[in-house]
């Protein structure tokens, strides 16, 4: 509206002014002036017509908006004049901002975002104060046994409502098509406590969760509803076969509700009480089985709830003591206390595993962005310098410094905005790719990565910060132009002053410093990853496959399980291509752990200790390629009724017997539920292996024969070594099993692949830090090259004079190279200090490498020095090639 009126009035005014002029001339002529005098006098009286028009124009404008718009248009025009620069700048910024935003999106989804439940701030988790520290049995992040949960539910005061849940895989469907889907077992109060509303049908309520309940209602996730039922309403009432029991779908959870465990999806929610049909897990007093959560009573705070739980939980633990433990184990149990922790952002294994890495990656990407900004600042400075005369002239004819500053900054703002927009688009793809990568290329993890206000604020803040970082210095520089000096110098031509390049040099040294941090980081992470992949595991992993066979459907009686296991093992062993096969209760480096404490009267200096335990059959050592150093392997003569024997590894011997011969020694395990105290005799010594993961030291391990395992389940884990590739062995075993035991369920994997997949965090850090380290180096080189080319060009006169006065060309090259050497030295010194400061952040993420490893530091410095040399060679050579006559005549 305003601008339309503005344009019309401007047009009209021009016409009016013409008329005024004509009238005035006529009047003057009427007074007897000559034509020329009349016109001149009229003009004089009118003064500047442009000023009048401007006054009216401004009257109709929102002034600052108009100015900003004008500046932006001007900036756009300037950028269009140098498209190469604009494109490079925008792409660099897009990559930098995109990478930062991607990391932030992941962190936001994993750490900051609240669950989509009512007033998430009130949701607390009941946890064991100080953690359970490996006590008892657990297969998840659980803090309560089921009997303890019932004590909590009965006696707690802190929460208006409480509920317990656990995660569980369910076998969905029947026969060959059956597959494992992720699910949740929840007590009836879960949805009402959280305030989650059904998307279709109804959700589970207290009425569905009665002790001893039969399989019946189940709730499915929105994702499952879409996938399996095509989002049809007919899904309500549909029957689902879960773990061989029939359930009925009663409702669907809303799409934004991805469960309480951030990062891991769920497909079904089944009432907690149903578990008794699959086993006696609910009655176990030593099995950590559930996560307990509650909504704070009105007026209660986290501290008050924590105090209440700490004070009252001693009684609850005492009320449900596990049986079968030795006195020391029970003492630990009695010392356990509960406390409260905020759970409004859900629980997450993914978070614990990756949060530190993600913060670190955010740090790395932000450093890269800083380097990119320094580069841009240098480029902009060079551009500003070439426009110095223009600026000086504009200042001289009355432009205000503020306006010039705004104009140059608006150019930076345009670049930053374009970079941020492009980066935001890039970020979505990047974060999704990263999540997929963390899941080893499977859709294991599910996060709500949609942008929210935090992401928006973050990206905007980053864009503004970058804009100021690279735009402010050049803008200030332009606005500060020394009018007389510049116009004068520009006209005459001379050497550029030393101070003029000081800021460029500062930026370059800074870039080198930050690059050093990134290069050291990259080297350290790559080295750490390399060390992990090549670390001695004690196991020959090639050709080893693991086959987990669940024969529950065969309904084998307890007494016959051992012979069934034997039968399956023999069948697997006879598959063509299989060289060795053995059972084992534990897959080395698979992340599981089973440890038992023992007492022994003849240990030097102590009366007992603890060891990892694995029950395996004969040939285990041959299958895994572990050397048997002394004694014998298990044989058929080791039966359930013969004396109990173990083979220990060398670490066990070293730790407990020193240099003495361990064969024939005896110890007695202390009791745990299901594992009564048992005397063992050591009959063999095996080579050391990793047990839990690759990072740990070789721990003491005791191997006992599977025939003497006190708990034989209706399943078996078989490891095979094959002459054919492990993948083919898996297929062969699967074919045989499907043909002969069609109802058993199998899970199979290649040992090597499993070990590699467990290194995903290390691999991620190595890749990303490597990539950004390389990028940093390239950016630093480009920056150095740019600045040197520019300074050389500006010093052409000086160099020409030097050459004319007899300086050798070698001397000119030296002149440039010395400058570079000083820059690198300053940068490296600063970078070394930075690296030293940054070391704490990464230490725990590394394996067998320290972040300030001198070797790495030297390597990084060498890389940077080489790159600096390469980047400065061409400008130096160009400087030496200056023709003094041409250079001096050019003035």
């Amino acid at each position: 509206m305003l601008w339309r009126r503005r344009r019309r009035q401007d047009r009209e005014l021009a016409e009016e002014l013409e008329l005024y002029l004509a009238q005035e001339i006529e009047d003057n002529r009427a007074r007897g002036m000559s034509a020329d005098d009349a016109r001149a006098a009229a003009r004089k009286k009118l003064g500047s017509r442009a000023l009048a028009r401007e006054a009216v124009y401004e009257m109709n404008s929102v002034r600052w908006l108009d100015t900003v718009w004008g500046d932006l248009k001007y900036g756009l025009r300037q950028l269009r004049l140098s498209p190469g620069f604009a494109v490079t700048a925008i792409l660099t910024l897009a990559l930098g901002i995109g990478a930062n935003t991607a990391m932030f999106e992941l962190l936001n989804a994993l750490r900051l975002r609240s669950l989509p439940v009512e007033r998430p701030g009130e949701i607390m988790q009941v946890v064991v104060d100080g953690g359970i520290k490996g006590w008892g049995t657990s297969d998840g992040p659980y803090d309560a046994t089921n009997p303890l949960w019932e004590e909590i539910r009965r006696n707690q005061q802190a929460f208006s409502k409480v509920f317990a849940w656990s995660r569980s895989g369910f076998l969905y469907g029947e026969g060959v098509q059956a597959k494992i889907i992720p699910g949740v077992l929840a007590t009836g109060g879960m949805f009402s406590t959280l305030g989650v509303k059904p998307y279709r049908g109804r959700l589970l309520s207290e009425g569905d969760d009665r002790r001893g309940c039969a399989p019946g209602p189940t709730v499915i996730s929105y994702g499952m509803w879409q996938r399996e039922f095509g989002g049809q309403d007919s899904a309500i009432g549909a029957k689902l076969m879960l773990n061989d029991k029939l359930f009925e779908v009663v409702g669907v959870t809303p799409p934004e509700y991805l469960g309480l465990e951030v990062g891991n999806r769920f497909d079904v929610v089944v009432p907690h009480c149903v578990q008794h049909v699959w086993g006696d897990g609910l009655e176990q007093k030593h099995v950590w089985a559930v996560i307990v959560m509650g909504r704070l009573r009105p007026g209660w705070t986290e501290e008050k709830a924590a105090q209440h739980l700490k004070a009252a939980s001693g009684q609850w633990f005492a009320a449900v003591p596990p049986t079968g433990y030795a006195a020391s184990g029970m003492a630990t149990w009695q010392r356990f206390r509960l406390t409260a922790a905020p759970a409004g952002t859900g629980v997450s294994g993914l978070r614990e595993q990756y949060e530190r890495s993600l913060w670190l990656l955010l740090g790395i990407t932000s450093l890269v962005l800083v380097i990119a900004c320094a580069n841009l600042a240098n480029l902009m400075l060079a551009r500003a310098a070439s426009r110095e005369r223009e600026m000086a002239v504009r200042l001289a004819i009355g432009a205000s410094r503020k306006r010039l500053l705004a104009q140059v900054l608006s150019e930076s703002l345009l670049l930053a905005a374009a970079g941020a927009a492009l980066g935001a688009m890039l970020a979505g793809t990047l974060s999704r790719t990263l999540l997929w990568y963390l899941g080893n290329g499977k859709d294991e993890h599910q996060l709500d990565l949609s942008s929210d206000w935090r992401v928006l604020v973050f990206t905007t803040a980053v864009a503004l910060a970058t804009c100021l970082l690279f735009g402010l210095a050049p803008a200030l520089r332009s606005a500060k132009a020394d009018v007389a000096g510049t116009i004068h110098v520009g006209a005459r031509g001379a050497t550029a002053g030393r101070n003029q390049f000081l800021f460029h040099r500062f930026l370059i040294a800074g870039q080198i410093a930050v690059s050093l941090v990134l290069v050291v980081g990259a080297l350290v992470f790559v080295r750490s990853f390399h060390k992990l992949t090549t670390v001695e595991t004690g196991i020959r992993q090639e050709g080893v496959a693991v086959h987990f066979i669940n024969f529950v459907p065969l309904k084998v009686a307890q007494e016959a399980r051992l012979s069934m296991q034997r039968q399956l093992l023999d069948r697997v062993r006879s598959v063509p291509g299989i060289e060795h096969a053995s059972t084992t209760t534990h897959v080395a480096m698979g992340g599981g752990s089973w440890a038992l404490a023992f007492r022994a009267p003849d240990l030097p200096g102590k009366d007992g200790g603890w060891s990892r335990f694995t029950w395996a059959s004969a040939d285990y050592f041959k299958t895994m390629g572990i050397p048997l150093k002394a004694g014998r392997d298990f044989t058929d003569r080791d039966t359930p009724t013969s004396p109990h024997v173990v083979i220990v590894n060398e670490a066990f011997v070293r730790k407990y017997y020193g240099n003495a011969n361990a064969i024939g020694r005896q110890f007695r395990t202390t009791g745990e539920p299901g594992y009564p105290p048992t005397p063992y005799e050591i009959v063999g010594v095996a080579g050391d292996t990793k047990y839990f993961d690759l990072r740990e030291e070789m721990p003491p391990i005791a191997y006992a024969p599977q025939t003497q395992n006190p708990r034989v389940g209706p399943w078996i884990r078989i490891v095979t070594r094959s002459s054919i590739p492990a993948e083919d062995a898996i297929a062969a075993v699967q074919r045989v099993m499907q043909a002969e035991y069609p109802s058993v369920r199998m899970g199979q994997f290649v040992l090597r692949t499993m070990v590699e997949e467990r290194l995903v965090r290390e691999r991620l850090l190595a890749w990303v830090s490597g990539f950004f380290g390389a990028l940093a180096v390239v950016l630093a080189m480009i920056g150095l090259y740019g600045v040197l080319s520019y300074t050389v060009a500006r010093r052409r006169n000086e160099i020409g004079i030097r050459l004319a006065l007899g300086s050798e060309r070698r001397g000119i090259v030296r002149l440039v190279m010395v400058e570079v050497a000083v820059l690198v030295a300053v940068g490296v010194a600063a970078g070394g200090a930075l690296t030293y400061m940054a070391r704490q952040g990464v230490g725990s993420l590394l394996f067998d490498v320290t972040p300030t490893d001198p070797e790495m530091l030297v390597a990084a410095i060498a890389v940077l020095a080489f790159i600096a040399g390469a980047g400065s060679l061409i400008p130096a050579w160009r400087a030496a090639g200056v023709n003094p006559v041409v250079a001096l005549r050019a003035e």
Partner: protein
Amino acid sequence: MARKKQSDGSGDMLAGTLDMMILKTLLAAPAHGHTIAHAIEKSSDEVLQVEHGSLYPALYKLENKGWIASFWGTSENNRRAKYYRITPDGRKQLSNERSRWESLVRAVGQVLGPVED
């Protein structure tokens, strides 16, 4: 900014007085810019010089405020010219301004007192 001061609208004249004089001039008959300037200069015995740098912004401001209206007509020497006329609102404004001005003059006169030679 330096430029802004020049184009404030009132030039050397007291703020608001030009507006008042334009309205007064238009009270007699509609006129175009040149005539208005002339009329003011004439009736002030050439004491007040109206620069168009002040005149036209003032005219547009008055028009935007609705105190005067414009129409296109033909000038004395047969050129297309933009004529201005005063609106009822403008008349009201003029009488307001006038009384305000008179009280101001009275007040200033009292402060200065009788002329002493």
